[in-house]
């Protein structure tokens, strides 16, 4: 390598190696994450913080719904039973429910044993003579009901009907039906259903993946005892937020690697055809690699953690970074001095930076990271191209003569100027389309970003409907200094929520205090029971004249007395019941205390939607004492779907504004450097036309725009501005070599991004479908709009 003896080359190489070493060191120390925190705004409201916490850690995020299909009912039930048994023994699962009554007896026993501490009816009046008589009369009336047999076995121990009251309070949630084999099945009876709760949070994708693998292994073992035919007919289905995360990650991984491989092969083949030198090919990849390192390092330094999303989209930088090398090798490789065309590239770089700098200001950390990544990446890539590559270029390197190709391109470009009228026509048509479709142009639902395929969503919907699984869309959240304070705060909301239910605003609500009342409430309830002698006296008076004589109720007197002396209920005492899970899901410990979550059920009559304004007003009027407010804060009403959609819509809205700002900055920079409004117009018009026509095309194809389309538009401007500047730099068509380099650059960009467009993952597809056609259109529009009269004067 004789060229390395050149001092400038040695210096450039030394600087580059030092730079790469520093960047690599920063990258190695950066933290990488893939969790939902990227969606948390930099200055979140309490609601937004809660939203993200719920999405990451909430009970719903840890739910896996399982269906066993195929085979006959007997085989499904046996498999469900064995699957549940082996998963119950697996510590990765906090709970496993398949409809078997494993927990039911423990639950009912616990409820019955603690009925006096749990029953909201327990007041001194309830156990007065009159209260007891009313309760006894109620029990007798219930015995006369068709449902009376329910109460019969319990009457001597619980003549006031506390257990029935508790059960009625609990029985409000939907549950799947059991089949004749005693396990849950779908309504059509063709699917055995199970609900699993993982211990790991839904955001821990590796743990979710391990849990899914455990389910699959347990399923295979569970169906093994079946005959090969019966066992083979059985099919396992899984759904849930964690399952979605795992599948999304797998999809994105496989799609990215497939598309990246294909794209690399395409681009490398193209470059090899042009350069005909593996060394030069490798050199041309240096700016891209250095740029990517610089981008990651900059994000790591600026944000502390680098999100996987940023990496994914940031690598699309390949489009711009490879172009720089192409300009250098194709335009410079034919003996032309880099000083002659570097100013054009530098201006292109500046406009790209202007576009991406706007993203710095985004409140959406994902977008801000993308901005930092892109600016750092393309700057370093351009500098590497400018100062390292010429030094490293073998002196013997001579590019094949692309002038004949360039001439043909020039002729084509000249011919295309006859179609220049097409640009304004298309632009105006595009504007018309966009104006007509303006209301439906953007999709502001977060779900639009989800890579979960429609079939998986359908399965989820179906299993969820069968399970009556809660979607926990609506929550009321209260905080407390400790668990008991949070429970007290939750109890204080009960009258407000009950009133809302009576008004029909809610269908129902749940609370951790239903299963684990605060200490004060438990004590107050138990204090309503008088001592045994007094209770017996009151009972005798109350039962006078009723067919239920007090003498039969000795078990009641014994148990009431025992309840008075029992230690208070604690979470620990609930172990072994499924009610403990309910408490765990609704009572969380936070960094500085505890938090109670009260899920609200929306009324079906109102299309399963809760009137948020009414709930908020009622909560505000709940009238918490000043001291309590200071300690617990206002109870918060949270509509998870609305909150997440609003968050995303906010980001989208902001990103649109920032992009427009970025576009203005681009124009400003061009005005500053080119000083000729006409030249600026010639640089900008093709880009504006390309962006508008692509948007209109997408709208016509029925594709709603998401945030990533917007990022794609920024990339059109970033990549396309190089093309237009080369056109605008000369007063006619660029020279043939430049034209050829522009064609190669466009081809690499289109092959890189065009492949993304075929992706099933919406975010990748969105970028691809925008940038691929956009780059092509930018070049075509540039050619069409170039001054035709000068074509003849091009040097031969």
């Amino acid at each position, binding site marked *: 390598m004789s060229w390395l003896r050149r001092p400038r080359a040695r210096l450039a190489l030394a600087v580059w190696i030092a730079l790469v070493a520093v960047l690599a060191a920063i990258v190695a120390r950066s933290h990488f994450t893939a969790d939902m925190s990227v969606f948390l705004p930099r200055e979140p409201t309490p609601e937004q913080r809660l939203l993200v916490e719920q999405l990451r850690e909430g009970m719903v995020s840890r739910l896996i719904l399982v269906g066993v299909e195929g085979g006959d009912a007997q085989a499904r039930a046996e498999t469900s039973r064995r699957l549940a048994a082996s998963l119950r023994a697996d510590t990765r699962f906090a709970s496993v429910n398949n409809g078997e009554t494993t927990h039911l007896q423990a639950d009912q026993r616990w409820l019955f044993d603690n009925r006096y501490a749990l029953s909201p009816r327990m007041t001194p009046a309830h156990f007065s003579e009159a209260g007891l008589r009313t309760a006894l009369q109620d029990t007798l009336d219930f015995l006369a009901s068709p449902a009376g047999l*329910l109460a019969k076995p319990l009457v001597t121990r619980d003549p006031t009907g506390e257990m029935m009251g508790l059960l009625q309070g609990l*029985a409000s949630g939907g549950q799947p039906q059991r089949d004749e084999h005693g396990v849950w099945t779908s309504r059509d009876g063709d699917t055995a259903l199970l609900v699993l709760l993982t211990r790991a949070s839904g955001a821990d994708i590796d743990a979710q993946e391990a849990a899914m693998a455990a389910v699959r292994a347990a399923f295979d073992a569970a169906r093994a005892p079946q005959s090969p035919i019966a066992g083979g007919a059985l099919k396992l289905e899984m759904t849930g937020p964690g399952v979605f995360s795992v599948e999304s990650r797998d999809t994105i991984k496989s799609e990215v690697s497939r598309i990246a491989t294909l794209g690399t092969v395409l681009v490398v083949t193209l470059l090899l055809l042009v350069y005909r030198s593996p060394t030069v090919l490798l050199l041309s990849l240096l700016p891209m690699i250095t740029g990517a390192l610089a981008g990651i390092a900059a994000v790591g330094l600026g944000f502390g953690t680098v999100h996987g999303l940023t990496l994914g989209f940031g690598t699309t930088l390949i489009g711009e970074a490879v172009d720089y090398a192409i300009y250098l090798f194709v335009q410079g490789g034919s003996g032309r001095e880099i000083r002659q065309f570097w100013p054009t590239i530098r201006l292109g770089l500046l406009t790209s930076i202007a576009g991406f700098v706007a993203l710095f200001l985004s409140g959406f950390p994902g977008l801000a990271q993308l901005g930092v990544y892109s600016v750092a990446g393309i700057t370093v890539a351009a500098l590497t191209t400018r100062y390292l590559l010429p030094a490293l270029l073998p002196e013997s390197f001579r590019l094949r003569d692309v002038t004949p190709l360039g001439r043909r391109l020039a002729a084509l470009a000249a011919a295309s100027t006859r179609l220049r009228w097409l640009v304004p026509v298309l632009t105006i048509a595009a504007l018309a389309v966009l104006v007509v479709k303006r209301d439906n142009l953007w999709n502001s639902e977060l779900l639009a970003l989800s890579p979960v395929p429609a079939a998986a969503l359908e399965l989820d919907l179906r299993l969820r409907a069968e399970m009556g699984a809660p979607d926990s869309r609506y929550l009321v959240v209260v905080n407390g200094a400790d668990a008991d304070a949070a429970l007290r705060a939750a109890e204080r909301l009960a009258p407000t929520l009950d009133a809302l239910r009576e008004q029909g605003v809610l269908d129902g609500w749940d609370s951790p205090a239903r299963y684990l009342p605060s200490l004060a409430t438990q004590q107050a309830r138990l204090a309503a029971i008088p001592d045994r002698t007094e209770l017996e006296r009151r009972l005798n008076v109350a039962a006078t004249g009723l067919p239920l004589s007090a003498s039969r109720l000795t078990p009641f007197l014994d148990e009431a007395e025992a309840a008075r002396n029992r230690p208070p209920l604690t979470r620990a005492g609930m172990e072994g019941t499924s009610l403990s899970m309910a408490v765990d899901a609704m009572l969380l410990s936070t960094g500085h205390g505890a938090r109670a979550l009260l899920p609200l059920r929306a009324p079906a009559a109102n299309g399963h939607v809760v009137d948020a304004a009414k709930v908020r007003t009622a909560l505000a009027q709940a009238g918490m004492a000043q001291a309590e407010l200071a300690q617990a804060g206002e109870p918060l009403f949270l509509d998870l779907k609305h909150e997440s959609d609003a968050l995303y819509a906010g980001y989208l809205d902001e990103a649109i504004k920032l992009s427009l700002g970025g576009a203005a900055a681009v124009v400003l920079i061009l005005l500053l450097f080119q000083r000729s409004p006409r030249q600026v117009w010639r640089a900008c018009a093709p880009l504006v036309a390309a962006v508008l026509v692509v948007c209109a095309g997408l709208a016509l194809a029925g594709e709603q725009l998401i945030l990533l389309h917007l990022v794609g538009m920024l990339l059109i401007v970033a990549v396309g501005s190089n093309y237009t500047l080369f056109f605008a730099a000369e007063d006619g068509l660029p020279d043939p070599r430049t034209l050829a380099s522009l064609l190669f650059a466009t081809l690499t960009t289109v092959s890189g991004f065009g492949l993304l467009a075929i992706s099933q993952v919406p975010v990748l597809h969105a970028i691809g479908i925008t940038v691929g056609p956009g780059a092509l259109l930018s070049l075509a529009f540039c050619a069409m709009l170039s001054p035709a009269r000068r074509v003849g004067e091009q040097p031969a």
Partner: protein
Amino acid sequence: MIRRLLATLALLLAASPAPAAGWGLEQLMATLADNRGGRVSFVETRYMALLDAPIESSGELVYVAPARLERHTVKPRPETMVLDGDTLKLSREGQAHTVRLRDYPEAAALIDSIRATLAGDRAALEKTYALKLSGNAERWALDLLPADPAVARLVSRIRLAGNGGEVREVEIFQADGDRSVMRIGKPQR
């Protein structure tokens, strides 16, 4: 638990009128099968070991052939229980519970015994019960003796009595010794 016993108790839904014809189980079933439905009053008395005196409830029964049976209790508390096809719905004090009979096969057998009698479906009855008919066309009594042990654990005998095609009394002898008698009034035309 609520659902299980609720469904079990659906058997306490009782009979309604039917026009009469000839004699023998065959003829009785045919006569009952001709019944398209109607509305009758009822009074049910329950005798329980637990209680010093029987307790009573009363109201109206509505039968719509072949699968819908409604019990509208007026006293002591308003309450509605509707059995329709496979679904049993109980509404009481502003709360409603719905269960599917398929979930509770034993209870389903019991409920079907009454509904099958009203519908004159002898084949369905004989799947679960041994049938014993006594009396004559004008004054008959049909005893259902559970052959299925799961059903026998709940009920030892069901006795339906009637005049001609009208069921006038349903007496259920529970396995624990408690008993209920439902007396059914004349159909209201």
